[in-house]
């Protein structure tokens, strides 16, 4: 291996300013951005799940099933889609963030979305039918 060559090349680039150290404040901002984003995501997911839980508490899907097509119509019309939409958006954001952390190559996008999607469906189903 040409040890001198790499060392010389990099030092030359450092001296000429071709490669520069990123300023410290960028790392501080990034750290706080990440913390803030996590906080917002947790709040959003909690709010979304609370919305669905509230709906499930008010209109039990098990009872609606007994009323046949009218029951389902009421269910579809009253379902809090905005809560669900919000949850999905924030879920996608959190999955994207999670995929940026750790060993990315271990979590392929398909695996991440399959796992996350399955988890979301299970949570919603549990809230709707058991809540």
């Amino acid at each position: 291996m040409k040890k001198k060559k790499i060392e010389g090349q990099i030092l030359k680039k450092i001296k000429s300013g071709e490669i520069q150290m990123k300023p410290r404040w960028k790392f501080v901002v990034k750290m706080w951005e990440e913390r803030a984003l996590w906080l917002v995501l947790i709040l959003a997911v909690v709010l979304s799940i609370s919305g669905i839980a509230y709906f499930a508490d008010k209109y039990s899907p098990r009872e609606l099933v007994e009323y046949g097509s009218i029951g389902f119509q009421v269910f579809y019309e009253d379902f809090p889609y905005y809560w669900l939409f919000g949850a999905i958006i924030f879920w996608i954001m959190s999955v994207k963030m999670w995929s940026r952390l750790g060993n990315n190559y271990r979590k392929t996008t398909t695996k991440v979305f399959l796992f996350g999607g399955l988890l979301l469906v299970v949570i919603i189903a549990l809230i709707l039918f058991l809540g």
Partner: protein
Amino acid sequence: MISDEDVVELIQKGDREKFGEIIKRYQGKLFGYIKNLINQNNMEVEDVVEDSLVSAYENLNGFDTSKKFSSWIYRIAHNKAVDYFKKKKIKKESLEDRDEILETGKEKLIEELEIEKERKMAVNKAVKNLELKYREVVLLYYFEEKNYEEISDILHISIGNVGVLLYRAKEKLKILLNNKR
């Protein structure tokens, strides 16, 4: 000798040329690690090493000098190796056979696998045929002599997981070696 962390602190304070010291200390180590990990020719490996060192310099202000520098720089090198895999679309599970690598650090592994020393070449081949997730822990533990905590820092996995992966890697190596008998 001045520690890596102290050298980094000097660079962070403005003595940029001290980065040459970091290059001297890590160029060879990173070369060996990346070579064993990606198993490509020297030119390709040198490019990944250079990328890793440049990235380390660019992000040096993000390094916390109260932590271990070697884990941090190995982490960068590891990420660059993974980027290389993605860029070149190399299948991570198995790699082509090159016998010139893995020449150091095998003794402990051979001892733990309880095989004859004459079968060193077989160990080379078996390690290279491990899936990436097992190969990387074997390389870091036996060849780079990192402890569980350092491997945990480098790979961003729990210490318990390091132990599990190492155990499984050894089991897989035993199977691979027994199949070759």
